[in-house]
């Protein structure tokens, strides 16, 4: 049944309702001052009870007072600047739908300023957009969470390093007192071999502890972003000779063979303290894994092109192919290390130090038994000559 056409009297709201009824979207007209609904079409009335005379904020949005998001003031401003309409998207809490609204300022026939509003339901489109926005928010939250975890981890790591550095420094002084006292005792002890052996044990323990502190401090220095590696020209044969002399003193001269070398002077750009720790670690490892009386650890210095190699061969159980890369990882302990003390830091430190010197460290099986660790570094200058150190 069709509504009768009201006879063409535009001052009659019914006239407009019939015209608006042909529009498939919700439409209403409201007084800009009193917020009273003047008329609404069928599509509007199907959604809300927007009958003539009701307040628009109450009838459409369920708000007893004008809505905080009301666009009337904005519409007034737009009209002043020459445009009589605004378009925007709005979510209506009342029916949980999204609308694209076009609101136009009109002079109603009885002289009132009124707003003509037409709404297109865009809920389906907004749901897709909102799903994306929610995913974006979730990603941003995860990012924040990960960042927080990273900062916390960095802080813990920094605290650990600071603690380690502090403890290591604090240990040096009492250790040097113990070491010094052991040497003084040795001077007094001329006729008691048992006491001499005990003093030697103290001396070895002090050196071992001192080496461990060096490793800890090297790790701390390498991990600290603020401490740069200090590079100088280091005489590599000289450094090797010093390390071997020290290790022979500790482990016994028969446990380290004479260094074989095809060069007598070669300089490398290195941090001498760190390079000493790296080579010492390799020699200590070789001594640790070579059984007593299995033969000496062999150290060799060779050169190839513009690089120089230091190799340390032990007589230990060897390292399986599967483990050759992993043994340089932090805290990794080889399956053959069972029963041998260690923290899994030594070879990690060696690799870190050598990496900082643009060098390479690798391991291969020994000629007969054990393993050969080789450090390769860029040479600065060298003089060839067969020499024994």
């Amino acid at each position: 049944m069709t509504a009768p056409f009201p006879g063409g009297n535009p001052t009659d709201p019914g006239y407009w309702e019939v015209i608006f009824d042909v529009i498939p979207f919700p439409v209403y007209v409201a007084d800009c001052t009193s917020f009273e609904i003047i008329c609404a079409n069928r599509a509007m009335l199907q959604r809300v009870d927007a009958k003539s005379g009701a307040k628009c904020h109450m009838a459409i949005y369920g708000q007893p007072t004008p809505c905080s998001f009301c666009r009337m003031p904005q519409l007034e401003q737009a009209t002043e600047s020459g445009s009589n309409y605004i378009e925007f998207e709005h979510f209506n809490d009342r029916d949980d739908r999204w609308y694209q609204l076009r609101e136009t300022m009109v002079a109603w026939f009885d002289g009132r300023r009124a707003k003509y509003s037409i709404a297109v339901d865009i809920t389906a489109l907004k749901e897709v957009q909102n799903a994306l926005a929610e995913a974006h928010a979730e990603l941003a939250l995860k990012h924040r969470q990960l960042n927080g975890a990273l900062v916390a981890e960095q802080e813990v790591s920094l605290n650990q390093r600071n603690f380690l550095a502090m403890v290591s420094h604090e240990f040096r002084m009492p250790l040097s007192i113990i070491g010094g006292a052991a040497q003084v005792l040795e001077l007094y002890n001329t006729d008691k071999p048992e006491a001499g052996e005990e003093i030697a044990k103290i001396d070895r323990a002090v050196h071992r502890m001192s080496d461990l502190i060096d490793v800890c401090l090297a790790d701390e220095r390498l991990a600290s972003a603020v401490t740069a590696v200090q590079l100088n020209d280091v005489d590599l044969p000289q450094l090797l000779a010093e390390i071997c002399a020290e290790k022979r003193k500790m482990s016994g001269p028969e446990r380290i063979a004479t260094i074989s070398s095809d060069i007598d002077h070669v300089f490398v750009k290195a941090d001498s303290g760190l390079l000493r720790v790296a080579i010492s670690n390799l020699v200590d490892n070789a001594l640790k894994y070579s059984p007593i009386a299995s033969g000496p650890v062999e150290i060799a210095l060779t050169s190839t092109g513009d690089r120089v190699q230091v190799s340390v061969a032990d007589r230990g159980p060897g390292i399986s192919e599967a483990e050759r890369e992993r043994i340089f990882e932090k805290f990794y302990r080889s399956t053959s290390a069972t029963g041998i003390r260690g923290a899994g830091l030594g070879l990690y430190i060696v690799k870190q130090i050598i990496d900082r010197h643009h060098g390479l460290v690798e391991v291969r099986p020994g000629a007969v038994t054990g393993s050969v660790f080789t450090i390769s570094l860029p040479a600065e200058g060298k003089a060839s000559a067969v020499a024994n150190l």
Partner: protein
Amino acid sequence: MPLKVIIVDDSIITVKKLIVLLEGLGHQVVATAGTGIEALEAYRAHKPDFLTMDITMPDMDGVQATASIISEYPDARIIMVTSHGQERMVIDSLEAGASGYVLKPVRIDKLSDMIAKVMERTA
């Protein structure tokens, strides 16, 4: 164990809907607030387990209200429940300290998931 919750929204209809949803999930709505200032006062009075926050409100908007609550209670769990899906709003809210973001229309499964995530994140 029901969680204590405050609803902050100037739309009476939204507040009513959220009460139904949250109580349906077994939580206890201890207060509602229609402005940012009321939200801060309600938070001080009730110290809820979490709070839902609208963005568009009179006086202080939801982003500012979130920042105010977080500056006083850094561990506060605030879920933005809003119709604003623009990237800038999302970023502003999260930077202000919000722990979750739910866009209207609010469905019970979406809200329930977000509450679980927020409680887990800040547990």
